[in-house]
């Protein structure tokens, strides 16, 4: 890990680094600009992201490519029904030679963690990850162990209700900054992908794709600090707040956005601004991040489900009923 400390980057430098990062990722991920942008937002906020998409849409490959382009550590956990908490956080093992207990850290001690099919693990195992996600530390045999300062979880889950899955509880979903839908690529992007394979390029061999490290962990931390300087005009702040509060008062929703969700929306909007090379948030940033940040936290009422409504249409209604400040 890079120990160098960078106090601050200029706005142009930050935009330049982030642009380069997206460029590297697009070597692997074709036609998924929105997904790449949201991954960058998650990184800038130091938040965790839930990637949801059908099998085979390069979710795992994306996270691997991200780690490579950032030149940072990355580990993967394949969640299964028999996965134990110690399999995630690690355990103390007895060393016969030294006759002492030694910590064998689990895969959670990394910079980027890919939690594949997180909804296949039981609630107890999911809870172990929950603590690490929110507190950025893990408790092993009563001892607290700090995690990486840029520890970020990218969890994947399938949108289809497979047998043997454990749906993430609302409290755990609320810990995720974003839920990033990973759609199928469009026809041109898929054709490019097939032609690359036809030329002999193996999709999983990232080295062959020429991905280069373009950002360091220290630079990422500097950009995270830079978010504080991104301005939010009072009208835009009120707009964001009105949107969040509207979810709590909507007839079709049993549960709306939590105060933590409002904080996450603010952070994500600021990160979106920085990603666009601005040091101020505009309403478009808020609108752009509203669904990825808020969508997975909403719980529909029974009446809404019976009448065939979905969370997406409710979010659209809320956006359509809220005046944009200008």
């Amino acid at each position, binding site marked *: 890990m890079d120990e160098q400390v960078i106090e601050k980057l200029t706005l142009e430098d930050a935009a330049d680094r982030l642009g380069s990062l997206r460029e590297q990722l697009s070597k692997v991920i074709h036609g998924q600009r929105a997904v790449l942008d949201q991954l960058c937002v998650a990184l800038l906020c130091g938040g965790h992201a839930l990637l949801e998409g059908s099998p085979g849409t390069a979710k795992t490959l994306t996270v691997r490519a991200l780690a490579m382009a950032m030149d940072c550590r990355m580990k993967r956990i394949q969640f299964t029904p028999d996965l134990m908490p110690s399999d995630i956080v690690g355990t103390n093992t007895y060393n016969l030679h030294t006759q002492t207990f030694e910590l064998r850290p689990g895969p959670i001690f990394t910079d980027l963690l890919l939690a594949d099919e997180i909804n296949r693990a039981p609630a107890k195992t999911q809870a172990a990850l929950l603590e690490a996600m929110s507190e950025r530390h893990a408790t092993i045999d009563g001892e607290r162990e700090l995690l990486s300062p840029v520890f970020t979880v990218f969890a994947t889950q399938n949108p289809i209700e497979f047998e043997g899955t454990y749906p993430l509880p609302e409290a755990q979903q609320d810990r995720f900054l974003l839920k990033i839908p990973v759609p199928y690529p469009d026809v041109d992007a898929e054709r490019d992908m097939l032609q690359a394979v036809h030329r002999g390029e193996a999709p999983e061999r990232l080295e062959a794709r020429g991905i280069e490290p373009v950002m360091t962990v220290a630079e990422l931390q500097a950009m995270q600090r830079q978010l504080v300087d991104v301005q939010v*005009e009072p009208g835009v702040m009120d707009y964001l707040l009105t949107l969040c509060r509207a979810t709590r008062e909507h007839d079709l929703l049993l549960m709306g956005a939590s105060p933590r969700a409002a904080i996450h929306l603010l952070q994500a909007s600021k990160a979106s601004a920085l990603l666009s090379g601005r040091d101020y948030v505009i309403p*478009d940033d808020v*609108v752009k991040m509203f669904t990825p940040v808020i969508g997975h936290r909403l719980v529909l009422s029974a009446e809404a489900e019976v009448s065939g409504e979905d969370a997406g249409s409710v979010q659209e209604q809320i956006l359509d009923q*809220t005046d944009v400040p*200008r």
Partner: protein
Amino acid sequence: MRLAALLMMAIMLLGFASAKAGAEVDAAARGGPTDDPRAHLQQIKEDPLFTRWQRREMRAQGGERSELWFSQQWNDLRTWIGDALDRLFARQRARSWFGEGAGEGLGTLMRWFGVVLAGVLLLFVVLTVVRLLQERSAAEQATPVRRSRIRDALESGEALAAGGSEWMGEAERLAGEGDLRLAYRAVYLSLLSGLHERKKIDFRRHRTNWTYVRQYRGADRERSVLAELTATFDETWYGQHLPERSRYEQIRERVGMLISGEAADG
């Protein structure tokens, strides 16, 4: 007083007409002369009502010239009414006995119709004048209300609350006061209002500025000008980066060009 005199005259004339008809009946019954204008004139002069009226007329003789003119007019009107009534009664007689004289009756009706029409026209003119005066008064009072409404709209961002030129006027006023940030806001609202009027965008308050850029109905060149103006507004309003005065003037000019459709040419 004039009205009272008019009414009195009408009553007298009606009395005269009925007395004339009665005298004809009495004379016919007595077998004497049926109509003697001098005798009737004498009867009128001896009537106490006529005497009182005559005294008042005499007093009025010493009045102003306008009073004399009015008296003359009044006498003409009285004569005209008397003639009209005579003709009316004559027509009735003719109709009942011989079936003639219908043309005279129709002429009288037409004359009455003319009087009523003139009255209605006069009433219409008076009401129109009154209404115009009221409107002018309301307009004088509404100017501060209008300005207050524009300020409210500026506060809430309701671009359609005023026309493009009104927003520009407000922007000029704000720029004159040195508040360039608010002036920018007014100019941008002027742009949205103007483009909505030209049906280049559909303004809705829940839509973001960049939605209008994406959905702009016009040439690509115009769209790029709109994008540039939107970016400048974002920087000024949301980013609170205050512009130079010269920059403001340029932006104002470009907004005017885009609204008028000149941006596509230039």
